[in-house]
């Protein structure tokens, strides 16, 4: 399940002895009324140094990392861009965290207890200090939860915690215990906290003390020195960090370099230590003996999306046509031609997302198998053997979208579907997609805090359902998705979501295509970096050390 390369020697971020994996932890967390889940005691803190017998990890030094996009702001709450998170992540932490394998483990909460299916008590780690020296308490956590629901500017007012998790209220039970009351049972809480994208813990009153768009106070491994929009983010080591011995680096600089060629030039001249590159650039840079290429899957997968609206009677309203499209698409050809052989088949949950996705074998042998005769037979059965014309809209950038569309156009010609490709600027595309103003869209999905984030849109309770496919009916899918998010027992939850995925791969109101591989190139001196599945640069925070 991991996309992390093998550890390069010392103290990786992988779970240590006694740590729980994601499934175990959630199973325990789901034992309603079973008493305390002393996750902290079971999991322990992150390993502070190398294991016995390993060489000591060199400490100190600075890493300069290139960002492809400006963070725009680094406010902890209500940020919508992934680059917001790149910029702020080194200084903020949440109650729970993911390790590099997406296993949940205690972070600022050393344990939690599911009191009943609507109540969870989080016990905070003692002695944790914010960058301003103040000790972390439950009052800080409550303040943070309040702001998660109502993000102050420059956060976006549309990004509310209640949009992800049914949190009703929070209550300070004692100096170190925060009670979270849910409107109803909601299994998504833990994943969203671990993701930390929208749930950092900040000191009470922080917004009155600093300009949260450019400054910040957290508990994370690095303390912010400066953020200059469109230029750089500068961090120094947090000397009081609660994970003893971490981070290994003294300083971390993130330089905004949107131009790929500029990043290549900067890397070659040692002006930066690493960054993200496309497959072609990574291949070229890989020939430089001073550089090393890291690659791994991320949650981003490409998919074909239809609208199924009342009164339109389009050919693809017939499930057999959608299935024909699915069987006519040769995903391996897309991976080979567009992604240089780097990529994986994806269902509605991307491969690598914990225990939730269907296996590659199952996808390849059954649901996403390239089978042209079957596709042609399905078109005949649907009375569409002469085919039809359709407009496929996609993003103009990144370029791979149009390239995937071109390969698909050729493939679908074999079942007489004439695809007219329209590539749009991302803002234009997003607007039309959000309004359901399209026939076919070639789009993408990204990281989610909980598996429900990938499947919720197939349930009529989601607002977007009625925009995209109000005519789609499958009560079994609706029930599985609806019940899945309130089922706290992970052991029961996993088969529910797998069954929902299998049903969706027969209904195909969305046709998942391929999960793309992300490439990062670093200088040889940078050790222990990895491509994080979450699309964040998590390795920089506590894993990376420099040598030489």
């Amino acid at each position, binding site marked *: 399940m991991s996309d992390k390369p093998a550890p390069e020697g010392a103290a990786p971020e992988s779970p240590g002895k006694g740590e729980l994996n994601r499934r175990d932890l959630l199973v325990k967390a789901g034992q309603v009324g079973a008493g305390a889940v002393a996750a902290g005691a079971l999991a322990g803190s992150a390993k502070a140094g190398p294991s016995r017998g390993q060489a000591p990890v060199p400490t100190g030094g600075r890493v*300069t990392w290139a960002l492809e996009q*400006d963070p*725009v*702001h680094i*406010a902890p709450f209500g940020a*919508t861009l*992934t680059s917001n998170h790149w910029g702020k992540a080194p200084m903020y932490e949440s109650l729970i965290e993911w390790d590099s394998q997406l296993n949940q483990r205690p972070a600022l909460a050393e344990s939690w207890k599911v009191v009943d299916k609507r109540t969870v008590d989080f016990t905070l780690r003692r002695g944790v200090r914010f960058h301003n020296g103040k000790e972390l308490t439950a009052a800080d956590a409550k303040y943070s939860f309040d702001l998660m629901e109502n993000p102050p*500017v*420059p956060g*976006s*007012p*549309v*990004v*509310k915690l209640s*949009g*992800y998790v049914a949190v009703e209220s929070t209550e300070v039970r004692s100096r170190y215990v925060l009670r979270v009351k849910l409107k109803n049972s909601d299994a998504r809480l833990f994943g969203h906290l671990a993701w930390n994208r929208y749930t950092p813990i900040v000191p009470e009153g922080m917004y009155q003390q600093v300009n949260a*768009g*450019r400054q910040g106070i957290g508990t994370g491994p690095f303390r912010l020195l400066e953020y*200059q*929009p*469109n*230029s*750089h983010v500068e961090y120094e080591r947090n000397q009081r960090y609660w994970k003893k011995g971490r981070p290994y680096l003294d300083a971390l600089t993130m*330089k*905004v*370099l*949107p*131009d790929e*060629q*500029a990043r*290549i*030039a*900067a890397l*070659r*001249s*040692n*002006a*930066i230590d690493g960054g993200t590159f496309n497959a072609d650039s990574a291949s070229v840079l890989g020939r430089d003996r001073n550089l090393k290429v890291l690659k791994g899957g991320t949650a981003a997968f490409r998919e074909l999306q239809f609208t199924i609206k009342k009164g339109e009677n389009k050919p693809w309203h017939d499930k057999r046509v959608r299935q024909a499209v699915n069987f006519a698409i040769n995903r391996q050809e897309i991976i080979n031609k567009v992604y240089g052989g780097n990529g994986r088949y994806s269902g509605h949950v991307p491969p690598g997302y914990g225990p939730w996705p269907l296996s590659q074998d199952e996808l390849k042998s059954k649901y996403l198998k390239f089978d042209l005769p079957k596709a042609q037979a399905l078109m005949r059965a649907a009375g569409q053997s002469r085919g039809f014309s359709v407009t496929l809209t996609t993003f103009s950038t990144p370029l791979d979208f149009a390239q995937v569309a071109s390969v698909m156009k050729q493939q679908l010609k074999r079942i007489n579907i004439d695809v007219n490709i329209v590539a749009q600027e*991302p*803002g*234009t595309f*997003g*607007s*039309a997609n*959000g309004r359901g103003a399209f026939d076919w869209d070639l789009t993408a999905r*990204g*990281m*989610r*805090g909980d598996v429900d*984030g990938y499947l*919720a849109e197939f349930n009529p309770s*989601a*607002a*977007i359902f009625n925009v995209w496919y109000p005519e789609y009916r499958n009560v079994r899918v609706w029930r599985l998705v609806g019940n899945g998010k309130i089922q706290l027992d992970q052991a029961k939850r996993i088969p529910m979501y797998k069954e929902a995925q299998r049903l969706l791969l027969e209904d195909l109101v969305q046709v998942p295509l391929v999960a793309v591989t992300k490439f990062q190139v670093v200088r040889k001196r940078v050790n222990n970096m990895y491509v994080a599945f979450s699309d964040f640069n998590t390795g920089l925070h506590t894993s990376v050390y420099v040598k030489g």
Partner: protein
Amino acid sequence: MLGYIVKRTLLLLPTLFGVSVGIFLMVRLLPGDIIDILLGGDITASEEVKQEAREQLGLTGSYPEQYWNWISGAVRGDFGDSLRNAEPVSTILRDSLPITLELVFLALLIAVVVGVPLGVISAARRDSARDYASRLGGLIGVSVPNFWLATLLLLFTSKVFGWVPPLTYISPRDDLLGNLSQFILPALSISVFTLAIVMRMVRATMLEVLGQDYVRTARAKGVARRRVVYRHALRNALIPVVTVVGFEVGVLMSGAAIVEIIFGLPGVGNQLLQAIFNRDYPMIQATTLLIAIIFIGFNLIVDVLYGFLDPRISAET
């Protein structure tokens, strides 16, 4: 002359009004708004929440109402707050404008300092090897896209010298040499087109002037060739060049946008492109208006200078 200046300045007002209306409408005609951008990815929100967000961001109300709110603030120097990071747009521009102006100034300096002598040499040595070399260089200069040249320069210096300009902005007040080393490549990249234009313009006007009777007379009187070229011919040949240089400021400003991104300089052009992608209306409007004002301002300066250089113009007007 004063009347001429006042008249030209007053003519700016309707131009600026037209520009501001154009900018306002163009921004509104972009498909999608910031709410669509904010709602990308995993975020779901009801129509009520979206409407509430639009109200908070000041995106409701009729266009005339929105225009009035914007332009009345702009006149007072208040361009509103960025929709993405809530900072006053005027603060963002205050930080980024000096970077772009320095870039444009250096590019203009390179273009003039190199372009004028090349044009003069090319005209004075017509049909010589130097003339052909200059003309060929000029042709290449007007044909090469600045973003391509910028990328090429960056890759070349990194590959050959293992050097790229400093990645973090260095103020000239802190370290002048560091600042210049940071700006030399981007300035060179955007200057090439203007340099070629200036060179070709100087060459053409010099050839025309060198054929005039007064030049021939001066030579017949025994004035040295060098003195005739630089004292008599060049001064008159430079008048149309002033116009070209003024117009080229606009070209350089637009070229700066892409080059700033390539070199990671947080200038106005960089801000503008990010704002367009983010549908950050106040940022787009203020930045575009600022660029338009600079462009119009330089045209005014050119007009006034022209009046000084050639008194017939102000007299006719």
